[in-house]
């Protein structure tokens, strides 16, 4: 069990005033508190970008990695010590662009991680270029005549790739988002929480006002065990409405569950005197 005071690193976030990241940070803190898990067992792994700085504002074990590489670092840490609750933060460029390959494979593995993606549909820290989730036609410094590609659909990709907990939250609804993250942390397996995050500086289309009008919660009657329904829901986007909530959830053994040698976490196995005599004998 960790308190809000214990989670504060004492550093003041250097995000732009009004940035959607503040909402996500608050939801993340609340989720960590709500899980009741011990403070020192949280291990945060961050990519690069505005979102990558999140661990700096939190007092937990953390490693800040390279652009797009947070998921493999997190995978290695989790396999080394399955007792850690590994939470990964990154942005849309980090996870769905430069790190897209790792994203896909981490989900196939159903590695027990919680991946919170700060999805603002634009590159922020590099001062406003197109991102993999930018809408077609979106004009940026790198696409002054509008984006030509269609955007990546992270939820559909996640459902198709074997993620076992696929959710979307909104940075403007902290209570709802913190529940999605807390459930993602306690979920055994790969949990994606894609978070709609307004960028007040570089994205003047997908703003708080726009999200307030378009975002709606999946109804109580929605069944997240229905994979085909989840695919269908994941395709909804635009002025007519954007669903948030848990799109898909299933129970499947995690990658570590399938490795009998992890019944004791690797980090706890003694290494002072590993006897290799049998290995050598086999070579004779």
């Amino acid at each position, binding site marked *: 069990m960790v308190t809000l005071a214990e989670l504060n*690193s004492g550093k003041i976030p250097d995000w732009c005033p009004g940035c959607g990241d503040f909402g996500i940070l608050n939801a993340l803190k609340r989720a960590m508190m709500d899980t009741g898990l011990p403070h*020192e067992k949280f291990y945060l792994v961050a990519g690069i970008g505005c979102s990558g700085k999140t661990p700096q504002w939190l007092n937990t074990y953390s490693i*800040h990695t390279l652009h797009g590489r947070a998921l*493999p670092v997190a995978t290695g840490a989790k396999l*080394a010590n399955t007792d850690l609750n590994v939470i990964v933060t990154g942005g849309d460029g980090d996870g769905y662009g430069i790190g897209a390959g790792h994203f896909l494979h981490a989900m196939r593995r159903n590695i027990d991680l919680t991946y919170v993606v700060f999805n603002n549909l634009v590159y922020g820290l590099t001062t406003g270029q197109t991102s993999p989730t930018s809408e077609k036609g979106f004009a940026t410094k790198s696409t002054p005549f509008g984006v030509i590609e269609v955007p990546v659909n992270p939820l559909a990709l996640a459902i198709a790739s074997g993620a076992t907990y696929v959710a979307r939250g909104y940075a403007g609804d902290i209570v709802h988002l913190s529940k999605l993250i807390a459930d993602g942390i306690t979920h055994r397996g790969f949990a994606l929480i894609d978070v709609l995050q307004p960028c007040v500086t570089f994205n003047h289309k997908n703003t708080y006002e726009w999200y307030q009008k378009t975002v709606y919660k999946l109804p109580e009657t929605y069944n997240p065990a229905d994979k085909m329904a989840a695919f269908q829901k994941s395709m909804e986007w635009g002025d007519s409405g954007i669903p948030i909530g848990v799109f898909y959830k299933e129970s499947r053994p995690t990658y570590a569950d399938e490795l009998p040698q992890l019944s004791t976490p690797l*980090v706890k196995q003694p290494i002072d005197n590993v006897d290799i005599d049998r290995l050598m004998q086999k070579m004779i």
Partner: protein
Amino acid sequence: MAGQADLDFSFKMGGEAGYGIAQSGMIFSKACTRMGLHVFVNNEYPSLIRGGHNTVQIRVRAKPVPGHTETVSMVLALNRKTMDDHEKEVLPGGVILYDADDVKDTKKERGDVSYCHIPLLALAKEAGGERIMRNTVGLGAAAAFCGLDVGIMNQLIKEGLGKKGEALADTNIRAAKLGYDFAAKNYDTKAFGWKLSGRAGEPPKMLITGNEAMAMGAIRAGCKFLAAYPMTPASAIMHYFAANERECSLVMKHVEDEIAGINMAIGAANAGVRAMISTSGGGFSLQTEGLGLAAMTETPVVMIEVQRPGPATGLPTRTEQADLHFVINAHQGEFPRLVVVPGDAEECFYLTAEAFNWAERFQLPVIVMSDKYLAESFFSHEKFDQSRVTVNRGWIVGEDWLKAHQPFKRYFSTENGVSPRVIPGTAYGIHREPSDERDELGSIDEDPQVRKVQVERRLRKFASVQKEVPAPALHGPAGADVTLVVWGSTKGPAIEALELLEKQGVRANVMQFVYMWPFPEAAEGLLREAKRLVLVEGNATGQLGRLIRQQTGIKIEEKILRYDGRPLSAEYIRGGFTSLKGGRA
């Protein structure tokens, strides 16, 4: 011929991929080691799965074998190309075993060599086998000439094929016997000048590749995590880890790409286990990014880089030593790393094990380099001495220490540059590790003074390592007239070349660079003491020579270089020496 003590027998088998040459080579080689003899086995093959031209060459001696020779005493030609390409390598008095029904119209240009037809295919069929069993018939015929212990050979066939069924093993044993009997009946095998005889009382020997020795060293050192992507000639390391994953309780993760590989290893090491990657130059190229992350977060990882000829795809299955400067300089910025290069299987084992101690004691990436010739050749060696491998995990602090040292300063400045490390999950040790520059607490900080302190602290680690790295190894007589300067797999061929040079009246020794970076401080004195330096390297530009000049100002003018994708040999070095200006001493 010479007596048993001077025995030097080389046997080359050649044929297309898929002919079972590698397996026959293993049986022959292991039979020799079980007879108490020493062997060295190297193979040459192109980058394909079926067809092409593959050879296995087994060199047998009564004393340790440092490398291969350019000549052989016996050839088993399973195809025409083997005959055409390797006829010239056979020593006078040697034999070429071939199937005249298969390998037709050959020139048979050598008057001093016996061409012995063995009906390999007919006898394989007579034994109840197929074309694939011709190699076993050949093995039997070879045994008849050189005196390989047939009982041991049959036992090895059983061990090798037993898993696939007793019947298959029996068929192969029959095939080998038919080959043996045919040779013994039709040729004067007794006159063959190279005879293997068992050496009772010899300690049992392993037959082990450089790759396997590295993997074994890592396991002995307590490495629990390997992340790798298949790439010749490094793949056998991942195979070895995977095969022993459960027995040794470790994880081998076959990753989506080498970028994931290095980052997973960093994650595992950061979480507190000994972790490594294994790859070749192409994979290492992708991992240069992660190398810097390991250095910046001061996460101890071990990276094995097995060289092959580049650039790009290059010669995927051949050998070269051309990545030295790349490995020493990879990644942007200035930071400490350690680069070490073993020269044989024994060094592969001990130096890889020790790499984990270096990595953890100084919290930096350690790169262990190898090359195809070292990685995939088999060495015969007694069991390694486990007591020579100790585990030193460096400065890892626990709860009690942490309670007394709050707040925990992960990156605080020390004299030798090494800061206290904590295993995540430990109470009172919570801290942040950014890839940005940071203060001693781990908070991102761009203050010029903070930057200066951290850069200098990291470089002090480099200086601390430099004080400890051993001097280059010297082999052969002290004060020799000529010193061959080598690194990596060139060690064995260079040491053997000393004997050949001695016969030409040249008294030479070998200076083997093992620890390359930090450049060993003692090296300059040794180099300056030498009377005449000759650089011997498996690359086109003399990379070690450039490093020596960079670090000491000493320019080695005389060079013997090989860059045709094939390994250096004692004969090649002697030839190269003779061609040097004033090469004849």
